[in-house]
């Protein structure tokens, strides 16, 4: 007997789980998630899980603002017995060059116009929020008090549990090895454990989305790049907000558990799905972070890990139809997919079911690259 599903989602990261929950909530039956490893084993479980609304494009500002609203009540919405640990202690974005500072002023205008409560701070004011900040060479900073971070495992778990209660089937340790396309239509997926017939497939495969797309005979312009994180021993609360420097490509936060997590966007990083680590990274991140936040030099590093960004030509996700009838894309999140997952989940579910999405995402379709309608985001790490 062939197995059947109405909708198959490939990938059990935060995106796949959020889409599945919203599909089931809107009444879709027979939704199935296929995950090759375990839930949140991909980028989701390796990410900084930072949530910021201080962006330079209207699209990112709206996606993140709407997602923050949802994170604020997600424990209740999803009836989660645990806590997703959404801590809103703000993001402090520091500027060390005139170019950066000018960009921030423009971003602020846009953000405030969209109702995001961000503001400009002098170096002095910045140290009131982060006393350990080194103000040498600092021109100023912007701060948004409602930015923050979550625990990515719990957010994924919360969506997965709620999805299961609504009837979604979640299969872990089940890799999709092929997609069956006939006469331009999706017919089913081949997995390690057998064939599943389905008219709709959603590609939420994160760092592997380009490989999954090829299975459906579509080429998508994304690549994967390794990004590493350093974690320190837990210490007493010292740093409230996430501190981020775009020109130095670094971010640093203290999570509720007490550890500091810090990451670096290295232009020379490996372009692959590799999740190994390097010594150069440790040296570079330690050097930059101890320069910006000198007292952290005394902290001991206890762990390092890495995950992948799935990067698109304009650093924006690719959402919507692509390729054969019944094939949908939710990939190319370019290092900021976690923070917009709540809205992406709703929007994708609406698109698949032919309903009106909560936020207009039609500009984020695959067709924009052919049309030349790129939405370049100036503010990425």
């Amino acid at each position, binding site marked *: 007997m062939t197995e059947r599903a109405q909708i198959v989602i490939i990938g059990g990261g935060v995106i796949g789980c959020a889409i599945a929950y919203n599909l089931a909530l809107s009444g879709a039956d027979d939704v199935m998630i296929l995950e090759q490893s375990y839930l949140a*084993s991909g980028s989701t479980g390796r990410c900084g899980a930072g949530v910021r609304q201080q962006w330079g494009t209207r699209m990112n500002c709206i996606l993140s603002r709407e997602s923050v609203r949802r994170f604020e009540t997600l424990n209740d919405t999803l009836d989660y017995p645990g806590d997703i640990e959404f801590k809103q202690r703000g993001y402090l974005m520091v500027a060390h060059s005139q170019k950066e500072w000018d960009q921030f002023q423009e971003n602020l205008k846009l953000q405030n116009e969209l109702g995001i409560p961000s503001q400009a701070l002098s170096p002095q004011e910045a140290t009131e929020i982060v006393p350990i900040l080194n103000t040498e060479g600092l021109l100023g900073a912007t701060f948004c008090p409602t930015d923050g971070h979550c625990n990515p495992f719990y957010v994924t778990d919360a969506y997965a549990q709620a999805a299961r209660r609504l009837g979604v089937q979640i299969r872990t340790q089940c890799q999709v090895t092929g997609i069956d396309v006939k006469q331009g239509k999706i017919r089913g997926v081949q997995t390690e454990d057998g064939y599943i017939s389905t008219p709709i497939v959603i590609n939420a495969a994160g760092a592997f989305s380009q490989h999954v797309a090829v299975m459906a005979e579509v080429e998508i312009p994304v690549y994967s790049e390794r990004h590493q994180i350093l974690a320190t021993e837990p210490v007493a609360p010292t740093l409230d907000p996430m501190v981020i420097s775009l020109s130095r490509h670094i971010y640093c936060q203290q999570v509720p*558990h007490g550890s500091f997590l810090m990451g670096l966007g290295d232009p020379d990083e490996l372009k692959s799905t590799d999740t190994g680590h390097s*010594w150069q990274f440790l*040296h570079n991140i*330690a050097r930059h972070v101890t*320069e910006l936040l000198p007292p*952290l030099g*005394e902290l*001991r*590093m206890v762990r390092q890990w890495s995950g992948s960004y799935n990067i698109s030509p304009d650093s924006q996700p690719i959402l919507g139809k692509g390729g054969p009838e019944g094939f949908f894309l939710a990939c190319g999140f370019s290092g900021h997919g976690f923070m917009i997952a709540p809205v992406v989940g709703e929007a994708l579910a609406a698109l698949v079911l032919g309903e009106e999405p909560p936020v207009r995402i039609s500009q984020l379709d695959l067709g924009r690259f052919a049309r030349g309608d790129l939405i370049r985001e100036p503010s990425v790490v």
Partner: protein
Amino acid sequence: MDDRDTTIICRCEDLTLRDVQRAIDSGCKTLDEIKRLTRCGMGPCQGRTCRPLVSAQLSRVLKMHPSEITMTRFRPPTKPIKLKALALLKTEAGDEDHD
């Protein structure tokens, strides 16, 4: 309270047998999943103390031979090291700067 509440499995992260059991009950089948839901193995010892205990418990519950339980990835460093020491380190590749 029974033995499970007082039996410490992970002394770095202060986790009891009960905490680990709860993760297994919620569907965790691998050390990695337990680690990510409970922090078991994420302490300064990097799981050197608790990993064997958790894999023993997993193999008991899942009725698998301990050798069938996949180990978590070992993550550097071997000993905790201060950031200021790392910052001073000269790497082979030289001093990379991306400002």
